[in-house]
């Protein structure tokens, strides 16, 4: 009688162990799928106000202890320019370079730009209210370890040369963005 009870208990114990092992395996897969402390932004727009919003969020998130990466594509690349290069470019690329802002300093605003007066006014008003300039925020973002990724495909399409862009950039494609975004708690397209 006692022997039978003992072996039954043992069998139960083994069943329990197996179930715990199965649960632990499940838990490990679930943990793997949990997002990191990560925020990913796409900057598609090339306007001062929109890029500014992106960098306010990026620096804020970094300050909150999040890993932040910003993926710049199409018009967003204009925010990463430092100068204009025309030589060695095809006709369309030259035209594009001529019309595009030559650096973050000359980005237009998305509303009421009036040939750049709007952007100058916004900058003056920001200075007046002690809001950090876009350039200060960009520097701050770098100091906080925000990763800045330039889209290689749109850079190539628009004919932007590497030496037209500021230093310290990473170059990547959709998979590099998605690699970050799929592990992020928040993802924004600006």
């Amino acid at each position, binding site marked *: 009688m006692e022997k039978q009870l003992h072996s039954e208990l043992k069998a139960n114990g083994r069943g329990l162990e197996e179930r715990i092992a199965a649960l632990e395996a499940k838990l490990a897969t679930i943990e793997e799928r949990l997002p990191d402390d990560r925020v990913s932004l796409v900057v598609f727009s090339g306007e001062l106000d929109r890029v500014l919003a992106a960098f*306010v969020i990026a*620096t*804020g998130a*970094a*300050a*909150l*202890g*999040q890993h932040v990466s910003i993926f710049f594509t199409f018009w967003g690349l204009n925010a990463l320019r430092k100068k204009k290069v025309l030589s060695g470019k095809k006709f369309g690329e030259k035209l594009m370079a001529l019309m595009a802002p030559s650096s973050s300093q000359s980005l237009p605003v998305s509303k009421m730009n009036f040939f750049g007066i709007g952007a100058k006014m916004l900058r003056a008003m920001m200075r007046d*209210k*002690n*809001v*950090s300039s876009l350039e200060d*925020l960009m520097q*701050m973002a770098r100091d*906080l370890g925000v990763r800045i990724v330039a889209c290689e495909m749109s850079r190539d399409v628009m004919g932007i040369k590497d030496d037209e862009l500021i230093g310290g950039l990473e170059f990547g494609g959709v998979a590099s963005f998605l690699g970050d975004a799929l592990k992020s708690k928040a993802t924004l397209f600006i």
Partner: protein
Amino acid sequence: MQFDRVLDVRGLACPMPIVKARQEINQLQVGQVLKVLSTDRGSVKDFQGWAQTAKNIQLLAQETEKENDKEIYVHYVKRVS
């Protein structure tokens, strides 16, 4: 309220109070307290949000002081890890 260091971000706007406070708290030892002076009204909610998100800090208290008819928002942040 006891504190070990003061950070004056009066006059600075979002996101600078949080960004500067974060940089400052990294300089502190675990257990030390940072007192932050800000004129940014939004900083009250911002510091609460920071404390909710970050695991290494704790928001001990928030006060509002008046100085020449201007509100000063005071935050006490403790580094816990």
